[in-house]
């Protein structure tokens, strides 16, 4: 896809980001079309979360370009960044629910604080979104600490979709969940993305999840995208990094940094 493609929702070019002397992103190039579900896979510590946080503006890259809807976002000032974030939702790895607020207040947060909606109206929407992720109104008054890990993920998903964003980022949506709950979350993500036509960018190292929710998969290794293609082609990618990763082999071009005792 070219930069000028009108259907391109997100376009990242030559993105570089370091922490001290450690270069985490070393010239990342990736595109995501409107309504597409892109999954970025890769081992732990390869920079997947850093890439997403750079796109969201939570980290400032040293070089490169990030375009959303054709607009360069790397140098956006505060107010413009807030406007941009109104069309983005994010599901964090650890859910990141606000401890001091009830479940419905968490879900309605973006509507009340971000969009200035009245609390009763926002509560109605929050209850609808909670129902969409399979949670009843009895949960709405509980605090996040009173919920199981799976329920917290569902609430976080409800919060991510509450403002009906054009783009949703999912950071390790199934990590730490049992296989059944992970599948429930995957189904919910697919349902939310397909029904609303949202553009989704997920990062995971869970291949079951990746195969289920992705239209396209990209693999990040040592700060670069080493392969990108349709989900159906991942088993025949011919890329040794991808083959080693999806088959979970210790032997291969990817070397884990394990220090001898």
């Amino acid at each position: 896809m070219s930069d000028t493609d009108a259907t391109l929702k997100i376009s990242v070019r030559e993105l570089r980001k370091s922490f001290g002397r450690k270069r985490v992103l070393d010239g990342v190039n990736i595109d995501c079309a409107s309504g597409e579900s892109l999954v970025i896979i890769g081992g732990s510590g390869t920079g997947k979360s850093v890439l997403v946080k750079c796109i969201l503006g939570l980290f400032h890259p040293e070089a490169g370009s990030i375009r959303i809807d054709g607009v360069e976002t790397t140098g956006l000032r505060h107010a413009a960044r807030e406007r941009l974030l109104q069309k983005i939702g994010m599901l964090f790895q650890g859910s990141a629910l606000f401890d001091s607020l009830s479940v419905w207040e968490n879900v309605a947060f973006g509507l009340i604080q971000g969009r200035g909606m009245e609390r009763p109206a926002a509560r109605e929407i929050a209850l609808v979104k909670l129902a969409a992720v399979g949670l009843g109104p009895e949960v709405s008054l509980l605090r996040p600490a009173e919920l199981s890990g799976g329920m917290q993920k569902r609430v976080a998903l409800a919060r991510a979709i509450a403002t009906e964003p054009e783009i949703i980022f999912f950071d390790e949506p199934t990590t730490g969940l049992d296989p059944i709950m992970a599948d429930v979350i995957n189904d919910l993500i697919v349902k939310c993305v397909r029904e609303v036509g949202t553009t989704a960018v997920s990062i995971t190292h869970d291949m079951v999840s990746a195969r289920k929710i992705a239209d396209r998969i990209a693999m990040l290794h040592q700060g670069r995208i080493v392969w990108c293609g349709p989900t159906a082609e991942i088993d025949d990618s011919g890329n040794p990094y991808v083959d080693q990763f999806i088959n979970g082999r210790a032997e291969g071009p990817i070397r884990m940094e394990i220090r001898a005792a």
Partner: protein
Amino acid sequence: MLRFLAAVGAVLLGFLAGTGRLVIFAGLTLSTALTPPFYLRAILREIINIGYFSLPVVGLTAIFTGMVLALQSHTGFSRFAAEGAVATVVVLSVTRELGPVITGLMVAGRVGAAMAAEIGTMRVTDQIDALTTLSTDPLRYLVLPRLAAGLITLPMLVLVADIIGVFGGYLVGVYRLGFNPEAYLNRTHQYLETIDVVSGLVKAAVFGFIIALMGCYHGYYSRGGAQGVGQATTYAVVSASVLILVFNYVITAVFFGR
């Protein structure tokens, strides 16, 4: 020698960098006060948290401070046959110095640590990043209400501490040292000036700002899980306590230095 100078230089540079970061943090936060939205509900919640829930500890500290001050000054002044000055010494010491400083230190321990722990936990669990992605400025939503509440609430607390502290001195003066109640109250009134109370309240406002700023700053920049949050609370309390003592001297010098 060179190594020693390098170490001193590194410490100095670190101190300057930290100070600069703190000033930028405070400046950015205060700049959010110039434009809406204003989170009045959050400010009210923090005022109740800082003010109402600190009343027991501030009250207890103030009454015992006033009591011990009366006892000590009586012991000292009796050597010069100047026992009559006890009431004056108690009221001036409490309103000018002990009320604001003791209250500031107690609130720094109770509230500053809690702020650092709460915001630090939010930082390490991605809740602050979540606020940003929900189009909410964390400085405006989390920090500004705490700074405003600290600024508003500490003077109120100090006013209460002043009254309770003077009452503590009165209790010891009248029931332990045998002063005439009316004479003690007259002495308390006689030498007390508006500036004595006002200087204490100005100190309180500054201390409230410092406590909230240090709690929020250390929490906001905490790193590394539970250990990082623990460190942030320690730094918040220690730095706020030291700054309270430093600014206490500076404000005293400004009001009474001539």
